[in-house]
C-alpha cells in the first residue's frame, strides 16, 4: 500500500514537472466539418479521410514549420445547418486556425458566418452553391467549382450536344440541389421546355410515384439534382419503369457508389464533374498512393479535401504563424498543382470550375464532352 502511494506521488510530481514542457509545445489545430453520420456519411467520411491523408503526408515530411504537431478535430456537421453552426462554434472555441468543410451548401453557409466572425479560415472542398463565396467573406475559400458554372456546362451540353427538346428536373429542396436546378432551368432558357419540375425529400427511397408522373410527360432527359443515395435509387427505379428519358446528374451523385448500386441501370447516365487531372502528375499520384493504401478507392471529394488541407498548411507554413489575415492573403497568392486540379484563387475565394461531361460506360465513368471547346473527349 505504501509503495503504491509513493508511486502515485512520484507520478503526480513528475507529471507537474513535465506539464510545462508539454504546454510549451506548439500545436497546430485544424478542423473539418462534414456529415460523418446520417445519409450523407459516405461523402462526409471521404472528406475526413482526405484531410487525414494530407496531414499524414505533412507529418511524414516533418510537420508544419513553427509547430511541433498537428492536431486534427473532425466534426460531424450532418448536412444540417444547426449542427454545422454548433460544430463551427466548437472549432472557434478550440482556437482552430482553419477548417476544411462543410459538404452540403446548406451547412456551409450558416457555419461560415460563425467561422468568419471568429476569424477562422474555411476552405470548402465540396459546397458548390454560388452564395458560398458571393458574400465577400475574407476567410472563406472554395476548392471545388461553382453551381452557376456547372449548370451552364450542363445546359450547353443538353442543347448543343444532345439537342433535346424537353426535360424533367428533380431536386430535393436543399440549398445546393434547388439552387443548381434553378440555375439549370435559367440556363436552358426557352431552348428546352421543362415539362416537369419535381421535388423529393432527403432520405426518400421510393420515387415510383413521381417517376410514373414524369414518364407520362415523356421528357427527353431526366435531370437528377440530388445527392448520391437518392440518385442511385432513382436511377434503378427509372430503369425499372422503363423510362425512355436519358439520365443526367451532377457532382453530388457522381461517386463510385453510383456504379456499385445502380449497376446497369446507371449505364449511359451523364454527369458534370470537375475534370480529374491525369494520374501521371506526381501530386495526383502521391495522393492516390497514400489514400488508397489506407482507405481504398477515393470518393469524389476526397481529393478536394486533400487539396484544401494542403493549401491551408502550405499557407500557414509560408506565414509561419496563425495570423488569419496573413494566411488568407497567402492563400490568395497560392499557385499549386493539387490532386483535384491546378489551384489558384480569385479575389472572391473561388478556385475556378473545371466542369466536364462524363458518361457511365461499361461500369465506369468515362470523359465524354468538353463544354469549353464543344468537342468530344
Amino acid at each position: 500500500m505504501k509503495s503504491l502511494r509513493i508511486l502515485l506521488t512520484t507520478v503526480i510530481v513528475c507529471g507537474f514537472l513535465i506539464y510545462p514542457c508539454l504546454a510549451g509545445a506548439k500545436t497546430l489545430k485544424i478542423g473539418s466539418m462534414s456529415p460523418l453520420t446520417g445519409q450523407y456519411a459516405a461523402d462526409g467520411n471521404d472528406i475526413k479521410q482526405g484531410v487525414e491523408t494530407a496531414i499524414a503526408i505533412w507529418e511524414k515530411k516533418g510537420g508544419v514549420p513553427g509547430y511541433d504537431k498537428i492536431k486534427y478535430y473532425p466534426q460531424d456537421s450532418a448536412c444540417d445547418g444547426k449542427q454545422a453552426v454548433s460544430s463551427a462554434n466548437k472549432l472557434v472555441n478550440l482556437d482552430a486556425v482553419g477548417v476544411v468543410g462543410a459538404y452540403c451548401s446548406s451547412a456551409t453557409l450558416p457555419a461560415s458566418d460563425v467561422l468568419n466572425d471568429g476569424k477562422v479560415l474555411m476552405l470548402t472542398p465540396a459546397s458548390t452553391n454560388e452564395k458560398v463565396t458571393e458574400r465577400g467573406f475574407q476567410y472563406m475559400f472554395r476548392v471545388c467549382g461553382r453551381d452557376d458554372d456547372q449548370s451552364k456546362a450542363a445546359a450547353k451540353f443538353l442543347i448543343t450536344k444532345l439537342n433535346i427538346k424537353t426535360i424533367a428536373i428533380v431536386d430535393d429542396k436543399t440549398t445546393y440541389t434547388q439552387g443548381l436546378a434553378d440555375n439549370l432551368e435559367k440556363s436552358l432558357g426557352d431552348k428546352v421546355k421543362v415539362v416537369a419540375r419535381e421535388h423529393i425529400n432527403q432520405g426518400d427511397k421510393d420515387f415510383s410515384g413521381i417517376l410514373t408522373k414524369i414518364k407520362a410527360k415523356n421528357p427527353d432527359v431526366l435531370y437528377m439534382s440530388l445527392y448520391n443515395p437518392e440518385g442511385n435509387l432513382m436511377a434503378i427505379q427509372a430503369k425499372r419503369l422503363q423510362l425512355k428519358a436519358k439520365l443526367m446528374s451532377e457532382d453530388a451523385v457522381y461517386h463510385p457508389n453510383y456504379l456499385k448500386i445502380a449497376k446497369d441501370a446507371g449505364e449511359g447516365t451523364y454527369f458534370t464533374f470537375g475534370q480529374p487531372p491525369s494520374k501521371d502528375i506526381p501530386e495526383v499520384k502521391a495522393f492516390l498512393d497514400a489514400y488508397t493504401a489506407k482507405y481504398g478507392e477515393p470518393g469524389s471529394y476526397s481529393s478536394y479535401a486533400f487539396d484544401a488541407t494542403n493549401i491551408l498548411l502550405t499557407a500557414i507554413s509560408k506565414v509561419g504563424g496563425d495570423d488569419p489575415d496573413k494566411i488568407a492573403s497567402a492563400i490568395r497568392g497560392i499557385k499549386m498543382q493539387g490532386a483535384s486540379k491546378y489551384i489558384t484563387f480569385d479575389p472572391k475565394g473561388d478556385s475556378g470550375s473545371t466542369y466536364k461531361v462524363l458518361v457511365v460506360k461499361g461500369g465506369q465513368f468515362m470523359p465524354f464532352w468538353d463544354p469549353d471547346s464543344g468537342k468530344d473527349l
Partner: protein
Amino acid sequence: MDVFLQQTINGLTLGAIYALIALGYTMVYGIIQLINFAHGEIFAAGGYIGVIALSFLQARGVLERHPILGLFLAFFLAMFYCAFLAVALERVAYKPLRGASRLALLLSALGMSIFFSNGMMLCQGVYDKAYPHFFTSGGFNIGGAIITNMQVFIMVGSVILMVTLNIFVNRTRLGKAMRATAQDRTMSAILGINADKTIVTTFVIGASLAAAAGVMVGLYYGSVRFDMGFIPGIKAFAAAVLGGIGNLTGAMIGGMMIGMVEIFAAGYLASEYKDVFAFIILILVLYFRPTGIMGVQVDDTRV
C-alpha cells in the same frame, strides 16, 4: 388510365412493406403496450443479413444455379437472425422494466433504436450496401403499366406472410395464448398462460416479419443502409396507429393506406408533400375515430 394503374401497383407494393413492419409494432403494443421504437432497426438488420447472405451465395455461385433456394435461404437467415435479435432486445431492454412505468420502457426502446442504428453503422460502414442483381429486373406489361417481378414477389410474399400470421393467431394454441395475454395479462397468467413466453413469441413473430420486409426492401430498391429503418419505422408506426394499434387487420389496412396515399400524393399532387398528406389522413381518421380504423374502445384495465 395506365398511369393510374401504374400508381396503384406502386402504392400496393409500398403499402405491403409498410404493413409488414406495422404488424410488429401493433403486436408488441397489443401485448405489452410498448411502442417498440427499435423495430425499425430490426427491419434494417434484416436487410443487412439479406445482403450478406445473398452476396455470399452469389460469390459461391449458388445463386446462379438455385436462385429460388438462395432467396429462400436469405429470407430464412434474416428472419432467424432478427428473431434472435428481438429476443435479446426484449431480454436486455424490456424485461427488466416489466414493472416500471411505461415511460421508462418507451425511453429504453428509443435508446435501443439509437444503439442498433449506430451499431450497424460501426460494424457495416456508412456506405450503401448493394444487393446482388438478381431477379430484380424483368416484368410484364398490363395495359401500359409495368409490373416488375419484384413487385409481384413483394405483394404475394406479404399476403402469404399475413395470411399465415392470421391463421397462427386465430387457430393455434399459442395464438390463443397471445390474444388472451393481450386482453388481460393478469387473468391469463392466473389461468396458467406463461406471459413471458407469450411476450417473447410476439417479439419473435414481429421481428421475423420486419426482417422479411427488410430483405424485400433491399431487393426492391437495390441497396441497404444503416439508417434505412428510421423513416419506414415512423411510417409503419403511423400505419399501425391509423389502423387501430393492437389490431392485426388494422395494421395491414393502415399500411396499405399510408403506402397508397403516399404514392398518389406524389403522383398527382406534390411529391415533396407526400408525407404531409399521409399524416393528414392519419390526423383526419384519428379525429373522427380516435382508436383508429379497426380499433375498438377498450376500458382501462385492458389498455
